[in-house]
């Protein structure tokens, strides 16, 4: 499983990396970035689901759930 950010939608609102710093970081323009390749374990699935809801642009998704 991976978390991914759709850059067609991400506008750098920063909710993902503010709330879930284990899963996301920020780039120098304030846009979200997944940490590493975005891979998550079962224990991080709840957080990832919360991140999907937190992003006001619906830019965060979970692949391979």
């Amino acid at each position, binding site marked *: 499983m991976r978390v991914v950010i759709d850059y067609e939608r991400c506008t750098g609102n920063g909710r993902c990396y503010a709330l879930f710093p284990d899963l996301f970081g920020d780039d120098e323009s304030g846009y979200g970035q997944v940490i590493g390749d975005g891979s998550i374990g079962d224990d991080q699935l709840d957080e990832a689901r919360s991140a999907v809801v937190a992003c*006001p*642009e619906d830019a965060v998704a979970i692949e391979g759930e």
Partner: protein
Amino acid sequence: MLGKMTAPTKFQLADAPMSADRTAGFRFVSSFGEVFQAANGTWMLTSAEAVKFAVRHPEVFSSAEATNAGSGIPIPLIPVAVDPPAHRKYRLVLDSMFAPRVVNAMEDDLRTQARDLIAAFANKGECDVVGDLARLYPTQVFLTFFGMPLDDRDQLVGWVETMLDHSTTGTAEAGPEVVEAATGLFGYIQRFIDEKRERPGDDVLSRLLALEGDDAWSDEEMLGCCFLFTVAGLDTVTGAMGFLMRHLALNPELRRQLIADPTLLGPVIEETLRVEPPAPTISRTTTQDVEVCGVRIPAGSPVALCLGTANREPGHWEHPDDVDVAQADRGHMTFGGGIHRCLGSHLARRELRLVVEEFHKLIPEYEVAPGFDPVAVWPAGTLHLTSLPLVFPVGDGGA
């Protein structure tokens, strides 16, 4: 064939009972439907789905016409009044100047400025949060970012408020005081553009002037952009700060929890931003016929995207009309959405955080002055309180 045709309603935004209670105000707005036409012809989009649809289709919902038409300002407000594809070039440059990392680097300075403003009244036992803090601080932050002297603060506050007061009172011809304010403000900005071109500093203005070749901005672009910051980034923060402090003053239990557990501050800020959005609506003009949530809107129509109602969509939040820290991790629309989403959101959030943190260090216990009822100005382009007098015990603050 595009969705169903509908007739205008009797709805007027000015009729929404917003002053005393935004819950009543926004309910009034949504009660007309998720997409409907107001009496003045403007199409209102009130549901989260409708608002998101519009902000994600900037080629259909144009900002250029909508924004420049209403402002009475002869230069383009960059980047808010720019449509794609040109918009992108401006945001690429500006985003990195207001990113969280930049704000982090400024934090100590901004914190000291907040503390100084609060210290000025901390031993008086009373203050007006709006007049003594929320009107002044955002302007200082602007001056700091743009490399202009803090001594000019009150002058700038005066010009900007005169202009905004005029733009919200409607279509009446600008009086001499408005013309004077606009001339003063433009002249002021131009003076610094000239000055920074000669002697660049380490500030936003100098960095914009340093762009070269095809990327370089004209004087008109510089002026339009600087001017936009004064109308987008000052009274919005003033509004948000007033509502946040009002909520904390009226809810001593929450305030005490917050002082005991600082991690609650982020959620409290997000929730007050959601429930009390300083910019309740944003404007667009349709470039073509379009269907939104099954309703047809013709080309060339003025459209108002109602962020306040989208933020309280039933079903999205357990307590849509209440500030509830348990639901603060759901995205809201207070900063807009899509390509024009607020450039200053990271800075605005930080300003709010620093002010509350420093306020509570010096003044942990406070309440609204007895007998005062803090109401918001309405109708208004920016929802804000005109005054928020607080009283507090002196001497037990201990910095």
